[in-house]
């Protein structure tokens, strides 16, 4: 506990943008076949440093087969609302779930170059206290730490629906399930919220049998993955509206609300439209009557390709789908970054008018067929995937692995972990930094990135940006 609020907590998104820039990044490393323990890489992102772009500390966990995926902080700017009653928490611990093992690690990064394991929550405890498995997204909020899960009970995680559980933000004790009335929600993926306006939005991927051993083509072609987003009364813990985006919009994944809490809209990325292989972004918003709405505002077309160049899974389609797997919104709510993992492209959309996004910049790197090289001449395996934006909006970082078994289906063979960074132009535009190229240890893949002091997908703000 601090005697003053943590200096990395900011009342408004605008103030977070003006804060000192990041000098370190935290990146998850996973062993795709579970033969080595997963780990956390601390990456030097200070351009003035001799080890710029390189890993300066590695922490490996004492178990095999966790499959690290997403992670988050124990505390963020949301602590600055008197309503939460915990203004003096430190941003000090990273909560890292194993999506495959359901084990949760609490990592103390007070001294990032000497990060250590603070606590381990075993899968049995999670299951006993919540009935959930496969923990995923982490957000810190009014009642503590909220964690979404992708699985319910039982060995294959289909005994009961997955959901969100709450963890104490000081002791890291699991408190129990979040939901009081989930309505029709029976699958889960991401969630985020607007704290002062008291709503939460959640999304759907699929149940564990639909993703753990790879994408199930029959399920995808019969539209059995998630395609509904749910709007919740956050503090009452109940669904007020479930909005079906249309069953062809398979896998509605990342939820990115506008950071400025005055605004009542946000975005959701859809991996693939099964009617035409397009990737899509939906804008969701609350209308004047208080009703939740959503509309498709961006579509990204597939690119025709020779069957010989395509992996088994895609041969029949004769095209590379964009595969919109991750999206991220800058703190000024101006640019939405869209990772097209299949095409090998990172798109930057100007979403100043959220209903009419305009493509403002693009980087081509990797890709199933295109296989664009990095400007430093190195091969970039897979495609742009987990994306994170610096608080000031000037640098965009990304890695290249989606999920071990899915990587192998879309990009057969081991293609190596990567983490790159691109600079954002004064008036938009995106250019890769030639010098930023992180080398990862052999046999690992890279997933989500978190930036020192918070980034564009961790902090929730309680005061407007005026």
């Amino acid at each position, binding site marked *: *506990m*601090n*005697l*003053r*609020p943590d*200096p990395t*907590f*900011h*009342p*408004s998104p605008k*103030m977070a943008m003006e804060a000192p820039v990041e000098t370190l990044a935290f990146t998850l490393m996973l062993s795709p076949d579970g033969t080595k323990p997963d780990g956390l890489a601390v990456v030097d992102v200070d351009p003035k440093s001799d080890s710029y772009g390189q890993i300066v500390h590695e922490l490996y966990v004492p178990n095999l087969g966790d499959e690290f995926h997403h992670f988050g902080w124990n505390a963020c700017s949301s602590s*600055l*609302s*008197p*309503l*939460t*009653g*915990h*203004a*003096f928490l430190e941003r000090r611990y990273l909560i890292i779930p194993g999506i495959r093992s359901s084990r949760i690690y609490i990592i103390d990064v007070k001294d990032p170059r000497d990060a250590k394991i603070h606590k381990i929550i075993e899968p049995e405890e999670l299951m006993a206290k919540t009935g959930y498995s496969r923990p995923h997204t982490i957000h810190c909020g*009014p*009642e*503590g730490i909220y964690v979404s899960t992708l699985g319910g009970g039982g060995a294959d995680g289909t005994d009961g629906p997955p959901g969100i559980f709450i963890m104490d933000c000081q002791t890291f004790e699991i*408190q129990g399930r979040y939901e009081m009335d989930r309505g029709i929600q029976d699958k889960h993926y991401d969630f985020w919220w607007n*704290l*002062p*306006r*008291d709503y939460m939005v959640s999304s759907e991927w699929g149940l564990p049998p639909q993703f753990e051993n790879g994408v199930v083509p029959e399920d995808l072609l019969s539209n059995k993955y998630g395609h509904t987003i749910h709007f919740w009364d956050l*503090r*009452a813990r109940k669904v007020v509206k479930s909005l079906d985006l249309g069953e062809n919009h398979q896998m509605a994944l990342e939820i990115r609300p506008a950071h400025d*809490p*005055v605004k009542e809209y946000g975005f959701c990325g859809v991996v693939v439209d099964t009617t035409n292989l397009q990737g899509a972004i939906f804008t969701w918003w609350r209308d004047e009557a208080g009703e939740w709405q959503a509309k498709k505002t961006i579509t990204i077309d597939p690119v025709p390709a020779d069957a010989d160049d395509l992996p088994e899974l895609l041969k029949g389609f004769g095209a590379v789908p964009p595969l919109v797997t991750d999206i991220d919104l800058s703190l000024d709510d101006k640019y939405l970054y869209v990772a097209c993992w299949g095409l090998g492209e990172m798109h930057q959309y100007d979403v100043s008018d959220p209903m009419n996004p305009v493509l403002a910049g693009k980087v081509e790197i990797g890709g199933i067929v295109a296989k664009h090289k990095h400007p430093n001449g190195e091969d970039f395996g897979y495609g742009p995937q987990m994306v994170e934006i610096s608080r000031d909006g000037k640098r965009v970082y990304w890695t290249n692995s989606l999920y071990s078994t899915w990587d192998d289906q879309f990009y057969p063979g081991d293609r190596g972990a990567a983490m790159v960074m691109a600079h954002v132009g004064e008036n938009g535009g995106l250019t890769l930094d030639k010098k930023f190229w992180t080398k990862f240890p052999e046999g690992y893949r890279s997933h989500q990135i978190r930036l020192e002091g918070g980034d564009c997908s961790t902090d929730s703000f*309680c*005061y*407007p940006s*005026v």
Partner: protein
Amino acid sequence: MDMTTAAGLWLAVILSGLYHGLNPGMGWPLAVSSALFERRRAALWPALGALSAGHFAAMLGILLPFSMMTLLIDYEREIRLGAGIIVIGMGVFLAITRRHPRFLARIPPHRLALWSFLVALAHGAALMLVPIYLGLCAIEELDAGHRAASALMATTALALGVAVLHTAAMMGSGGAMAYATHRWLGLQFLSRSWFDLELVWTLSLIVVGGLGLWMAL
């Protein structure tokens, strides 16, 4: 002597109000937030009004039962001792647990009065006034033995007076902070001015309870 003690106690009522108001944890940043959301400074006042109403209700909720009890003139000393011990106990409890009850985080953000009411109860803000109030009752030297009805009116009026004065002081200091932040200082003042008063707070409870005991003995 009694005049000085009475003046001291009334001063304590005001000072504790100012202190509660200044503490961001008691809510003034929510008024700033409200004004920023509505993009007009005048929106500070309804929010401050709601916070004050909740605080006032919490004061009355705690003080009125004691105002009834003061009628038991024979047990006056025991009541004051008991109140002092309760306040010290609350201080010690909060000092040990150092926790903010989780249910407070489930109150919808627009229900400011309810939140303010519950937070004043949960953090012992209302309780802090009890020893001060009982001290004032003792000085009034209420002859309750044969004029029960008017004595009840007198102690109730005194409770109201304490709650009004305390809440006015709280609204004044909290309002000044909210106004200054919104008008001149900006949101950065919020994170700069916020100190962890938890320990000071628990100590104040213990000190006030201790003074209550000392005055009763």
